[in-house]
């Protein structure tokens, strides 16, 4: 069995999952903070 395949799978999975959560958290934060800073529409 190729050991590197397991290593690559583990790293890819972990880094992809982490990146996804970061991007989602970041986008949610930007959106919410943007709306919160907006002047209330008359």
């Amino acid at each position, binding site marked *: *069995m190729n*050991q*590197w395949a*397991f*290593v690559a*799978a*583990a*790293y890819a*999975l*972990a*880094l992809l*999952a*982490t990146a996804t*959560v*970061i991007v989602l*958290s*970041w986008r*949610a*934060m930007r959106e*919410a*903070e943007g*709306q*919160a800073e907006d002047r*209330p529409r008359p």
Partner: protein
Amino acid sequence: MHRFANPARFLKIARPLTGWLFWPGLSLILAGCFCGLFVTPADYLQGETVRILYIHVPAAWLGMAGWSGIAVAALMQLVWRHPLASIAGRALAAPGALFTAICLATGSIWGRPTWGTWWEWDGRMTSMLVLLFLYLGYIALANASARQGQGGVSAVTAIFGLVGAINIPIINRSVVWWNSLHQGPSITLRGSSIDGSLLWPLGLTFLGFSLLFGAIVLMRMRTLLARNKIEARMQRLARG
């Protein structure tokens, strides 16, 4: 402790701190992964798969640290009624669940070539899976019992967070109390049975993932606080 109860004061620190945690965290993770993949030697027995350790161990630590944080936040919410505690508890759940899942997945990927199995119901693996389910339960409960205009978690959710903390010492001791397939602790207060030449990138990824975890929690806290503000304004407008 109540000095940071004021969201405005908290945000004044949290805004710059998010970046200060994120960028060094990301750099350390990338450096640690590079060194762990290409610089350190292979293990005498496991071969190359030992490299999975550099993400598995930080993920396990953060999965457990996340719930410890939820328990502390729950205590502060229930006892001192600290207004930011319930927000912090809710913000901790998603990254905690993420790293618990990463820990389980990488452990499984390591277990196949090392043990010869993807999954076994031994004490360590079972208690870690229980932790993932606790996170999912906490998230579901927090979403179901969230009240309008309150970004944090309800008292019931906080109690659930406190009760679930009993699993943390069980995970930690599972390999000592029970005969388990998972090996015993390599790094203890008395020293490390991982050779130094294999160990050092773990320090980089450990610190890196911890900083990144902090950045994610801050982002999610800021999101919840901003949503609170929007909600409050909507209510003002509706009344006005």
